[in-house]
């Protein structure tokens, strides 16, 4: 994959899917760091630097966020809304990565300014192809105001 090592925040409650994302990035030998949150509340605590994540050194801003929609505690669309309302966080690309093919979810995600909406493939090979293309694009080509130089850490 192209691009400098970057930090990815993966917000996903399904451990199997999270593992596939991690393995896919490993397969493509990407040296980016992946932080992983398994519910919406922890994800927002991390991003908003609340509670145990109040130290910025321990909660570096991600360069890209992969966000599932069906999350425990706080739903993915709510997490998206909070991110896009925050002046600093709104600059981070949020890619909705979900099993949902519901039109309402797609429309609502874009209404809340998701940068992209992708449906998780069912097959592992296709999933790794998606991660490859996603990495090439978002970590290789896309420019963000927060992009900086900057390996999977569970938060």
């Amino acid at each position, binding site marked *: 994959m192209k691009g400098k090592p970057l930090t990815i925040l993966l917000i996903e409650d399904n451990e199997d899917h999270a593992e596939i994302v991690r393995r896919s990035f490993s397969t493509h030998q990407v040296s980016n760091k992946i932080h992983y949150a398994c519910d919406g509340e922890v994800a927002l605590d991390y991003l908003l630097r609340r509670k145990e994540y109040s130290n910025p050194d321990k909660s570096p801003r991600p360069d890209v966020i992969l966000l599932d929609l069906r999350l425990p505690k706080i739903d993915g669309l709510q997490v998206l809304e909070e991110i896009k309302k925050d002046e600093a966080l709104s*600059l981070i690309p949020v890619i909705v990565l979900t099993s949902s*093919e519901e039109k309402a979810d*797609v429309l609502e995600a*874009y209404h809340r*300014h998701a940068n992209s909406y992708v*449906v998780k*493939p069912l097959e592992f090979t296709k999933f790794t192809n998606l991660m490859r293309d996603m990495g*090439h694009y978002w970590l290789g080509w896309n*420019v963000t*105001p927060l992009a900086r130089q900057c390996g999977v850490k569970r938060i």
Partner: protein
Amino acid sequence: MILLVEDNEDHAEIVKRSFRAHKTAHRIHHVTDGETALDYVLQRGEYSDPEKSPRPDLILLDLRLPKVDGLEVLKEIKQSEDLRGIPVVILTSSQAGNDVRMACDYHANSYIVKPLEFSKFTDLMRDLRAYWLGWNVNPLTLDLPGSKE
């Protein structure tokens, strides 16, 4: 269909050649200023017939444009309930931090700096096409990809 908003004819030709090189089935409609771009997406003026101005699946938008600036075009698109779901990829020579920031503030889906070399430009077009036309779900078409690539 891809709407390319680019006033530099050389750059526009590179984009078109790059897509032709990958034999994409997507048609490219090229406009050279911001006002015409807005006429197109808002289906007004010469583009008032929806059949002649179908909603684009993707907009590639330069920033420095005649008549109406790219950021203003972006703002109009993203403020519109009907249009905000169209992915808008800023494709520009500008690496100015302020431009990147403003584009994000106006909810550009993505910001890309044009490579200087043609081969890199074609690599970019390949990756851009694979992602936005292959994987991304467009709410206006609700095309569910993943099987296209």
